[in-house]
């Protein structure tokens, strides 16, 4: 499903964010992306949905090179990848409801279906009571859950979550994780960058560890590794 071949990303100012990464993630996998702050996790994710292009190397998704995508095709790639951004990236002048609905409006889904889907997913992340608020009126955790709701509402084939529990209390975190596991069970590939060592350790899923831009570990049933 997702393949990185010798991918290197150098930011302006000679900053090596990723160095020579080669990795393969199969359809339906659940993968944790771990590593200290600044290790390159977010960069890895940015390359995946083509926010950034790799400086060197190739990235294939479903067999197609995404670096060679024409700009018309990019939106269609992105529709298949739900992303929970580390900084949320909610539309500031749209309500929670509208933010989540947007991912479906883009697909020209009928309004009735939009309403049903959005309400369902807001209930799943526990935001039914906040649907009419604007992002700046939300608590940090509520913003994060809105971002999660938007990423999963259109049932993407790949779900990428960049530290989706960073602003959540342990109980809510567990709910969100079990939501992601459910989605994964229905066939969605899930990639989750996280610092939550307790979650990683308890789930025993595949763990890809980055450090200073290098892939340092890739375990089938791994642990977080720093606390262990």
């Amino acid at each position, binding site marked *: 499903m997702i393949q990185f071949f010798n991918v290197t990303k150098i930011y302006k100012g000679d900053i090596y964010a990723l160095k020579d990464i080669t990795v393969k993630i199969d359809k339906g996998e659940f993968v944790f992306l771990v590593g200290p702050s600044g290790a390159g996790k977010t960069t890895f994710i940015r390359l995946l949905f083509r926010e950034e292009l790799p400086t060197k190397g190739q990235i294939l998704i479903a067999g197609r090179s995404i670096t060679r995508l024409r700009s018309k095709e990019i939106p269609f790639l992105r529709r298949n990848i739900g992303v929970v951004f580390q900084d949320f990236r909610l539309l500031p*002048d749209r309500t929670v409801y509208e933010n989540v609905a947007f991912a479906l409006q*883009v697909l020209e889904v009928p309004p009735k279906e939009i309403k049903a889907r959005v309400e369902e997913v807001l209930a799943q992340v526990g935001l039914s009571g906040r649907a009419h608020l604007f992002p700046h009126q939300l608590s940090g955790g509520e913003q994060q859950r809105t971002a999660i709701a938007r990423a999963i509402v259109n049932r993407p084939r790949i779900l990428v979550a960049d530290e989706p529990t960073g602003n959540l209390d342990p109980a809510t975190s567990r709910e969100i994780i079990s939501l992601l596991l459910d989605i994964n069970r229905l066939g969605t590939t899930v990639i989750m960058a996280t610092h939550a060592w307790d979650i990683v350790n308890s789930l025993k899923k595949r763990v890809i560890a980055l450090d200073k831009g290098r892939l340092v570990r890739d375990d089938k049933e791994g642990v977080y590794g720093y606390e262990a």
Partner: protein
Amino acid sequence: MRLRTWGYFFRQAFLSLWRNAWMSVAASTSVAVTLFILGAFILLVLNINFIALALQSNLEIAVFLRVDTPRSQALALKQQMESLPGVKEVELVPKEQGLKILAQQLGEEELLEATGGVNPLPDYLRVRVEDPARIGEVAAILQNLPAVEKVNYGQAVVERLLAVLRWVRYLGVGIIGMLAVASLMLLMITIRLAVYARRREINIMKYVGATDWFIRWPFLLEGLFIGLIGGGIAAGVLLWGYTSLTYKIKLSLFFLPLLEDNTVLHYTALGLVGGGACVGAVGSLLAIHRFLKV
């Protein structure tokens, strides 16, 4: 795009106008102010042009005949002149009438008496030409007709007047051109600044998988409405201001010909509204363009 998506575009455009209310007000005010100024100058220049044309069409050539020319020949000459190319109208002023006019001008009621009963004046003809700019050519032709003693069209004054009017016209077109360019620049900058404040929004939409046109349409419609509103206000104020100003001017300058052709007025107003809409729509498109490249 499906029909329901168009519904979304319109709803979103209006919602956004409303939620970014002060930005919408600021942008429409800019459009209104700019287009009002532009419209006001278009009407001003049109009027100056109109007055200049009226002035020009008042110009005439005085053709003095020899003192001894019989009245019958004078009348024949009048007919001959009327058939010349470039001549619009010819009027015969008999010497008796000429003396009366002169007497009036000099304040000498009894001029004929003072000259011993002899009228020293010739008959003369007042000739209007079709194209005031070619008044000199026509005068030269008239000069060569038989029995013509002298031709006078106040050459020096007329040439100066024509030169001034020509420059007034150049300046008018220049000013309107300058204002049009300036308006365009100012509005583009305003729209760009307004869109700039929302650049992150555009990025985010793209990251969520929106196509370029899906993002563009609501912005385009928003720009269109802002332009329409601004242009509408400009046109309304202009029409009202113009009619009330011309009304006032006519009270004291009743003799001045002013443009009161409603079609011209309405075309100008329509042009402002249309121009506003275009600038708003196209300006939005151009402004969001660079934020779509993600």
